[in-house]
């Protein structure tokens, strides 16, 4: 054992230049990402209001969360709904559009990439959807529908519970062709051309077979990376909900786990309780990601 440790220590000493280069980033990363996750988990078992020292209260925050907090249950339901719809839909959209775009000529490909990526890079200007779904007749949605005679009166889109969730999903999808989409565009271009030629010789007859038997398996690393990005975004809906439906929204119809977390963390200063919400969110996100990674590893096997 002694020798194993001394050998390791020797390795550490000879790599000190590597550690020195890693140190600045890793220290900041630990302070602002790793440590906060740990603090959050510890605080979730306490009562803490930022003024007094945190008091240990066991599982009370969690029992309150799941048994007594009706708004949390709405938030949970909305978050899962958003995730289950926008996650898979945006993931497939990223891939399908990247795949179609890949068949275009280079100039057209660059243009279409820009068209699809523009919403997600345009600096959080989703408030332009406020102009589109504005509740008066000057909003373009109301205006169009009234012009066509489908509506007689303007609809208060963002104040009506039944419309809030679909509109948020729509905007969330509009914003979702981001980093994952670019990764797919790039991945498709790196697939070995000779594989397609060999496939054609081996009897692959149409583009769908080619997609399934050659393209998808050769892109597995990008598919896994894209999945992480899309899943994480799908569970994190908050900004769009707040910008469009307000905070708090009508009857909490647009509450999500993140907005609920903000409510307790920045408005009510119940930090222990907010930390338990953060911990639940952390577990859901990481759990969903690891599960999907496991599934994607099976693609093309």
């Amino acid at each position: 054992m002694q020798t194993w440790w001394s050998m390791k220590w020797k390795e550490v000493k000879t790599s000190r230049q590597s550690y020195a280069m890693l140190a600045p980033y890793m220290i900041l990363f630990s302070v602002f990402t790793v440590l906060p996750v740990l603090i959050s988990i510890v605080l979730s078992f306490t009562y803490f209001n930022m003024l007094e020292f945190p008091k240990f209260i066991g599982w009370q925050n969690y029992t309150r969360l799941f048994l007594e907090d009706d708004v949390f249950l709405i938030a949970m339901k909305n978050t899962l709904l958003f995730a289950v719809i926008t996650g898979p839909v945006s993931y497939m959209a990223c891939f399908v559009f990247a795949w179609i775009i890949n068949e275009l000529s280079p100039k057209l490909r660059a243009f279409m990439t820009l068209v699809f990526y523009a919403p997600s890079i345009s600096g959080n200007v989703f408030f332009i959807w406020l102009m589109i779904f504005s509740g008066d007749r000057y909003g373009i949605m109301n205006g169009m529908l009234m012009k066509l005679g489908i509506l007689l009166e303007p609809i208060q889109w963002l104040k009506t519970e039944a419309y809030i969730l679909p509109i948020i999903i729509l905007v969330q999808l509009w914003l979702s062709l981001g980093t994952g989409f670019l990764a797919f565009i790039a991945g498709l271009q790196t697939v070995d051309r000779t594989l397609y030629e060999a496939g054609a010789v081996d009897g692959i007859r149409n583009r769908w077979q080619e997609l399934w038997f050659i393209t998808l398996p050769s892109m597995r690393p990008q598919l896994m990376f894209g999945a992480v990005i899309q899943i994480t975004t799908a569970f994190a809906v908050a900004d769009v909900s707040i910008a469009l439906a307000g905070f708090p929204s009508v009857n909490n119809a647009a509450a999500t786990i993140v907005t609920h977390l903000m409510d307790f963390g920045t408005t009510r200063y119940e930090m222990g309780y907010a930390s338990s919400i953060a911990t639940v969110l952390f577990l859901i996100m990481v759990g969903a990601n690891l599960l999907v990674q496991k599934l994607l590893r099976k693609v093309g096997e």
Partner: protein
Amino acid sequence: MNFSLPLRRKRVNRSLGGTISLFALLVLFGCFMILPLVYAVNNAFKPLDEIFLFPPTLFVRNPTLNNFVDLFALMGNSWVPFSRYIFNTVFITGAGILGHVVLASAAAYPLAKHKFPGKKAMFGIVVLSLMFTPAVTAIPNYMILSWLGLIDTYWAVIVPAFAYSLGLYLMKQFMEQIPDSLLEAAKIDGASEYRIFWTIVMPNVKPAWLTLVILQFQILWGTDGNGFIYSEQLKSLHFAAGQIVAGGIARAGAAAAVALILMSVPITMFIFSQSRIIETMATSGMKD
């Protein structure tokens, strides 16, 4: 010399119906993606009576720059001059990008090219951190920043941004494809690791650091201060934009103008760097 017969290029059969329906799909959804932005651009140039025209129009008829004049007049009268919001956003974005690119690249190099104890664990944690959003860490971050005395300064946004994990991840994946022979040659010549990093690695990963610049730009340009900045004179352009939009109908013209300013900068940057970004993304895959 290669005497074998060249493999005959054979294209897999593409049915015409399939091609047409796929491209119809592309055009349809392309419109869904771009029309809101086209509408926003047009609104910025519409005179007020056109913004409040019924039925509303997508395209501007009599373009004018009045909205921009209004915007600056509006902001010129406010307690904090509009130029200050622009400076705040530019400073936060610039400093955040510079620190992130340097620190993330320096850390990515040993992770990609060296062997040392703890390497796997460190990179594993970075990948794990891609799997949850910053919202999870917001409360402890507030506490940590206030212990460090950074709350209500630019640094409350800038310093955490140095350590964003997506940039490190992409940079490390990209650096792995630098041939080892290139680094070995320098090592034999007696160059230190820092020298190798700065004079050989960095010039070879230009596409990747350009990508880091753009991704970081996108996050910081749209920042509203994360709730860490209170003083009005330190707030960002995006925050000011939110205030204008909240002004409702009376500010509709100015709001459209500010939306155009906010979105045109990142889109322009992307247009000029697209091919480099795609090059970087080609190595973004997760290996088992």
